[in-house]
Structure formats: C-alpha cells, structure tokens
C-alpha cells in the first residue's frame, strides 16, 4: 500500500480537528457521521422495541376469541402506532442509519457531505417520534391506521387531535428521511475514494443510491397528502370531502404513490447488506455484480409503477387494474435475479458458518416465501379476496421482517464489532437465530391460513366458532418465541460491549474499506484516503495503486492547514479527485432549527397560530444564520 506518510506532528492536528467537542454542549452540537448514525441506530431500535411491545399486546388480545384484554379503542390505537412506528420510525431510519455509519467507511471518505444536515435530520427524526408518542400523554393516540384513510381521519369522524399528532409527527420524520436521502445520494455520487469508479463501488451503495432517489420522489407526495389533510382538518378546506367536491380516493392515490415505493425503500438497504455479507462469508467475489446493480435500479423504477395494486378493491376500471397487475407481476424478476446471484455466490465459494450467514439463509427462505405470496396478491382476482385479510398481514410481514429485519440482524452481527470493537457471541447468536426464525414462522405462517379462512385485518376481536382460534393462538405462541429470539440478540449485544472478544480491524476477512480501519474507527476514518483500483479493495492483489498525483490532495488531507475537517470530492462516474473541501465541525443550528420547527408544529396542534408563526420566523432566522456561518474552524 503506497500511501503517503504524514510528517510527524500533523497526525495530532488531524485527530484534534475531528475530535468530538466535550460535554453536553459538545454532544448536542456534534456532527460526525459515526456519532450521529449511532444515535440514529439506537433510537431506531428503541422505536422497534416500542412497536414490538405494541404488537405483543395485540397478539395477546387475538390469542383467543372474544378476549377482553384490550378494548376496541386501545386495540385500534395499538395497531396504528405499531404500523406507524415500524414503517416510519424504524424500518426506513434504520436503513439510513446503517448507511450513514458504514457507507462513508466503505466508500473511503471521512464524513457525510452535509454534516449539519446529518445532525438536523437526527433531531427532527427524534422530535417527530417523541411528538407521535406524546399523544399517549394526552390520551389522544392516533387511531386511524398507519395508512390513515380519509374520510375516517377527517375532522368529522376523528374530531380530537389524535390524527393531528399522527400527521405532524409523521411529517417531521418524513423531512428527516428526505434529508438523509439527499445526503446519502450526494455521498455516493461525489465522495467516493479516488479511483472508486461507479462500477467499482460496493453493492450496498447501489442499493442505498436507489433507496435515496426513491425517497426523493416518493416521500414528497406523502408530505403533500399530509399537509392537505391537515388543511382539511384545521382550515376547513375540501380536498378529501366528497360532499363538497373533494375525493376520498385522492388520499389513497397519494398515499400509495408513496406507500409502495416505501416497501422497496425499506427493502433495498437490507438487500444491500445481504450483497455485502454473502461474498465475505462465502469467501469469494459476488457473482453477477452488474446484474445485481442493474436489478436494484430496476426495482427502484418498477416500484413507482405499482401503487394501484393497493387499491384493487376500490372499484377502479378493470383495464387500469390489469396494467398495474402486470407491473406488479414483473417486479419479482429483479428480486429473483438477486436471490439467484446470492445462491450462485454461496455455491461458488466456501461458506464460513457464522451467525450473520445464518440470518442471511433465514432471510432467503422467508423472503422467497414472501415473494411467492407477493405474486399472488399482485393477481387482481386473488387480491380482491386477500386484500385487507390476514393473508396480506402474513405476506407483508414475510417480506418486511424477512426482507429487512433479518438482513439488519445479519448486519448487526456482522458490523457491530466495527462499532464497538467487540465480537458478539457466536453461540448465543446461533440460539437467537433459531428462536427468531422458528418464532417468526410460527407467528406469521398460520396467518396465511387465517386470512384464507376469511378473517379481515384490523379487528380487535372475533367471535367464538369462527375457526380462527387455533391459528391465531399459534401466532400468539410464535410471537413469544420470536420475542425471546430478539431478546437473546439484545442480551448478546449488551454483554458483547463489555465481555465480547476483541474484534481487531478485520474479524471476517472483509472485502470493503470499512475493514481496513481500526474497530472502532478513528473519528476521521482514514488518515490517508485510500486510492481504490478494484471492486474488492481489501482482496485485490494490488489494492491501492496511486494513479492520481497525490502531492496535492492527499498531502492536504494528511496535513490540514489547521484544525479543520477536510474531505476530497471526486468526480461523478470515475472518481477522479477534484477538490479538497472543508466541512463544518460543530453547530447549534441543527438543534435550534429543529426546536423552532417543533414550536411551529406544536402551534398547529393546539391551534395557537402565533406560536406557529414565531416558530417559522425562528426557523427562517436560523436558516439564514446556518447558511451565513461556515463553522469549519478556519
């Protein structure tokens, strides 16, 4: 590895520039991607736990017929919060958080492109989540479902402020998600290590790139839909009111135009994690890199053409349904290509049986089953039977838990050692896998049958003698097993932080640059930024061949002109180093901006509009200060 050495003494300057400021103020103003992404990860898993607890309450209620454990109102609140939490507060943020932590490392750069946006995104995400959960304190818990269909969620049928909590909280989280997406797309396009052409970047970055672009196009319509609904509720406009010229289905179009790409937004980072881990644990390069990259892009594009398959029962014309059915039926092909590529890679290599691989095998088994039922519900006539029945509940838990949670758990076992420097226990990991895998299938497989037996979704109870008792009871037992498995992982994580074996830089024989730095990585990630000459930088025989004259950019990165944080920008396709830029070091503006926005939304919630105005004015002032100040320490 021909890399430049810094002159003695400059290393301290680099460390000082990237050190996190001390104290509470320091941590509130911290901007480094690893620090913020860690908070993101922990917060997302806290929300996951909350959503999980809600689901256990629901499972207990449904474990027997005519159960009085929960009343109707509580049950409706719980399934609303469960879906909202899992989709908005866990599944999307956790994928972004993974990417925010590991992509800069995998791409060979020191930070995300907009550090203050990173911090701002985190703050509005966590404030949005708190906002949503504050509804419990006021006894106004959202109860309109995660899909929040009008007119049920309009002012007439949901008069309190429960839906306002939902709309405002979710909109906050959407803004955070959009910000994160912009950040990650720019990271992938412009911050790759010199020499890492777009055709050489790790597959995870292809997945995150497509995810980011999908978020940029899919989330804004939901923001619009939510704002229109909030206007209907507070101002008295008529967008969704059929009696005065509005239309109830407008919400469904806008919601599902977001909602279906959302599924792929959740899924794609998970698939990227699989594409990263499979070659490492199969000890061979991935087979069909380009095919996987192309099919990832295809999934992203097709994901926008299928939203109406959530509306097959709303009475739309048959021809339109056929078109959307066709589009939905073609989406499995890119997924089939990826699955075949992973199987081919495993066949090609020599597998190392570690816990992450177990989770990935579990993922394939479950996800393919979810794909099969996905094809089934893409068929219009069958969907008209299965829609809003427990069959669909089973289907999307197979896709989302199988396709997203299992890869995330694989990623946790695989990458946590990089974050903490300690390995997770293999034995406990394998036990957790079997409990999770068996528990998952026991919970969700019977629900396919319950659905075909005619049980609709979102019912708080069911009568005796319906024939649903057995399968529902099995599901409840399964959910306890599943929880045990997840708790085993949690225990493993906690104990590993203290007692885990030291991981070293590269416990798995990794392929990508993240395994090149120490565990945990230094704040600046890379002292000298590596120059990449192939797809597998750590496996290539001549990994870092300097092609570009390093005397300018590399020297400057090594020996910054002061205590400043610098990264090199590279060109879009070929990653030719172009310029060295200086990033902000710490900032109060993200937190202040988020607080002012909370004030503005809080004003809407309690209908005190001067408060909203003050919040907006504050936010604008902070915005001006934000753009005015560089905060890079120079």
């Amino acid at each position, binding site marked *: 590895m021909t890399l430049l050495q810094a002159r003695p003494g400059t290393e301290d300057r680099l460390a000082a520039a990237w050190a996190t400021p001390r104290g509470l103020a320091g941590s509130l103003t911290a901007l480094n991607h690893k620090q913020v992404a860690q908070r993101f990860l922990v917060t997302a898993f806290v929300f996951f736990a909350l959503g999980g607890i809600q689901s256990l309450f629901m499972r207990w209620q449904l474990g027997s017929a005519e159960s009085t454990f929960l009343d109707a109102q509580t049950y409706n609140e719980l399934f609303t919060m469960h879906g909202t939490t899992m989709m908005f507060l866990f599944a999307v943020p956790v994928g972004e958080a993974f990417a925010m932590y590991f992509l800069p490392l995998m791409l060979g750069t020191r930070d995300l492109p907009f550090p203050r946006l990173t911090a701002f995104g985190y703050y509005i995400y966590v404030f949005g989540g708190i906002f949503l959960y504050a509804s419990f304190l006021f006894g106004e818990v959202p109860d309109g479902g995660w899909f929040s269909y009008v007119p049920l969620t309009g002012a007439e049928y949901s008069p309190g402020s429960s839906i306002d909590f939902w709309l405002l909280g979710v909109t906050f989280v959407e803004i955070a998600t959009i910000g994160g997406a912009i950040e990650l797309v720019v990271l992938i396009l412009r911050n790759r290590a010199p020499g890492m052409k777009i055709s050489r970047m790790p597959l995870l970055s292809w997945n995150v790139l497509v995810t980011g672009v999908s978020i940029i196009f899919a989330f804004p319509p939901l923001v619009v839909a939510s704002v229109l609904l909030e206007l209907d509720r507070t101002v008295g406009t008529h967008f969704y009111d059929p009696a005065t010229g509005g239309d109830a289905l407008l919400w469904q179009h806008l919601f599902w135009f977001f909602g279906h790409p959302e599924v792929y937004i959740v899924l794609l980072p998970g698939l990227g994690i699989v594409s990263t881990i499979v070659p490492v644990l199969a000890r061979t390069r991935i087979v069909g890199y380009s095919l996987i990259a192309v099919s990832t892009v295809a999934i992203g594009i097709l994901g926008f053409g299928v939203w109406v398959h959530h509306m097959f029962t709303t009475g739309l014309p048959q021809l339109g349904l056929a078109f959307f059915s066709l589009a939905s039926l073609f989406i499995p092909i890119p997924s089939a290509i990826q699955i075949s590529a992973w199987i081919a890679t495993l066949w090609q290599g020599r597998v190392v049986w570690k816990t992450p691989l177990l989770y990935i095998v579990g993922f394939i088994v479950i996800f393919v089953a979810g794909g099969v039922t996905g*094809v089934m519900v893409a068929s219009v006539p069958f969907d008209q039977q299965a829609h809003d029945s427990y069959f669909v509940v089973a289907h999307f838990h197979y896709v989302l838990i199988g396709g997203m949670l299992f890869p995330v758990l694989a990623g946790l076992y695989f990458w946590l050692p990089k974050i903490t420097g300690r390995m997770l226990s293999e034995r406990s990991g394998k036990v957790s896998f079997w409990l999770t895998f068996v528990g998952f299938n026991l919970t969700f497989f019977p629900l396919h049958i319950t659905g075909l037996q005619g049980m609709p979704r979102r019912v708080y109870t069911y009568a005796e003698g319906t024939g649903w008792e057995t399968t529902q009871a099995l599901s409840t037992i399964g959910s306890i097993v599943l929880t045990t498995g997840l708790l085993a992982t949690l225990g493993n994580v906690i104990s590993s932080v203290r007692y885990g074996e030291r991981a070293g830089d590269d416990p798995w024989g990794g392929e990508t640059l993240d395994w090149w730095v120490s565990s945990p990585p230094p704040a600046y990630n890379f002292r000298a930024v590596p120059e990449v000459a192939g797809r597998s930088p750590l496996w290539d025989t001549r990994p870092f061949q300097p092609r570009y004259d390093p005397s300018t950019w590399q020297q400057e990165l090594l020996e910054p002109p002061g205590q400043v944080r610098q990264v090199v920008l590279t060109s879009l396709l070929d990653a030719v180093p172009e310029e060295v830029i200086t990033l902000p070091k710490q900032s109060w503006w993200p937190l202040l901006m988020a607080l002012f926005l909370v004030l503005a939304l809080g004003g809407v919630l309690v209908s005190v509009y001067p408060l909203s105005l003050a919040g907006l004015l504050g936010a604008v002032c902070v915005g001006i200060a934000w753009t005015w100040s560089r905060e890079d320490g120079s």
Partner: protein
Amino acid sequence: MSTEALPVAAPAPGSVLDPVGPDAASIAGLTWFMIVLGGLLWLATVVFLVLALRHRAHRAPRRNTRGAKAFIAVWGVVIPMIVLPAVFAYSLVVGIGISRPAPPEALDIEVVGYQFWWEVRYPDSGVVTANEVHVPVGRPVQLQLTSADVIHSLWVPPVSGKVDLVPGRENTMTFQVDEPGTYLGECAEFCGIQHARMQFVLVALPEEEFQEHLLALRLASGTPDTDLERAGRDVFLAASCGDCHRVEDVSEGGVAPAPDLTHLASRETIAAGMLENNRGNLAGWILDPQGLKPGVRMPPNNLGGDELQALLAYLESLE
C-alpha cells in the same frame, strides 16, 4: 356491563377455498394454482440454497463462474419470465370472467355502509332493511355499493372478492350463490372503533322462498294486535326511538342514520351480526348498547321494567 359469553349470532365465516358461487370458485381455482406453483418454486429455491451451502464446503473457491451465471440466467430470469406471464394470463381470464356485467335478469340490491352497519335496499320492490341480504340461489345478483360516512368494504369470502363502499362513489359487485345457506359478511376496510363488529348475514334462498320473503318484507308490519304491543309502540315513540329508526307507518326516522326496524323481528341478528335476535339480547342492547359495543352510534336508554317489556313486545311483533 359484561361483554363475555355472548351467544354467537352470525354464522361462522366461510373460506376463500370453499366457494359456494361461480366467482369465488374460479378465484379458488386460481388460488390453488398459485399456491401449488409458488410452493414448488419456493421449495426448489430452498433446495438450491441448501445444495449451494453444502457444495464446495471442503474445496477451495472456484474461479470459473460460468455455471453460476447460467444459474442466475435460468432461475433469476428464464423461469420467472415463464411463470409470471402464466400467472398474469390466468388472472386476467379469471378477472374478466368475474367482472362481466350482470345480465338483465340479475337482482339489483343497494347497500349503503354506515358506521357500523349496513342498509340494504331492494329498489325493485321498495324494501328497506338492514344487516341482512337475502338473495335467490342460482340467479346473478348485482350490488350497488356506496357509503354514507367513511370507507367500508363488503366481503363474503365463499361468494366473491370484496368491493369497497366509498362515499361519493358508487361501486358495483356482481355475484351468484349456488348453494342455499346463511353466510357471514364482513366489513373489510377499517372504518372506526367498531370495525370488527360490522358484519351482516347473507341468506341464499331458493327462488320461491326468496320471493316469499321479499313479499313479506314489502308489506308493512301491520298495526299492533295487543294492548301491550300498542303500549310498546307508544314507548317507541315517546323514547324517541323513532327519531332515528324508521318503522313503516309509525316513524320516519332519519335524525341520525339508524337501521330500518319495520321488519326487525324477522331478522336473525341485531347489532350488525353481533347478537342473536332474541328477547334478552334485544333488551340488553336497548338499555346499554355502549356497554356491548363501545363507540356504536346508538345512545343508551333508561327505561322502566314495564316500558321495556312493552317495547320488546312491540319490537317482536315487527315481523
């Protein structure tokens, strides 16, 4: 008010795979086709996965990837390109079959969804009832569906797929029931607090019996015969029941939407499929609907014992 140990009112729900009409039967065929085909593909994928994991476990990694790429081409592209169009074609055929417009001899019924009950109208005979749909066996039926408040969805699994009831829109649903019987209908779109208890009964009768039933519904329930029933009618009016509930020639209803009670006594269930229609349940329901079905639109009624007995006698006379 306890809600435990209620008698089961409605029939057990039917299965999608146990059809009683041509629409559901053709969907059931499609379903079996997809389950078997999908199951085989899933199984094959798992077998390939296991083989891949066991293969080469003892050898050094291979360099030549030709075989692996051929596998991707076949299993990732060729097989799906064969299977998916087949599924699409079969679905299209079934879809066209079940969405054919109703023939002229079809029976027209209008269903309006309310939180949390169904109004059922037979426009040809002017009959209005609630939470019970009677249809003739072997004759196509066309439902005109709309909603008066939020979105609902009407689903009778063994009969056909579901169709939403959307306010401001009119959807149609055609089906035919070939086996006489009583089937559970459900609301399949979340419509508020008592979505779970928004059910109805679909009764398929042989044509003759169906006509008799319709005729009975068409006639007014007649004037009360006994003093007790007449007293009950007075209670019905005095307690403002008639403000919301219509009884032909007795009350207009309509202040707030509520089921037409003209032929209440002929129905099998009350409270939208939740309770068996008997004296005890009726009494409990009138006194404390909020205890039985929290969030339902009907207010509780404070009636003395005599008043209640009279009212029950009257309601039970509404055949």
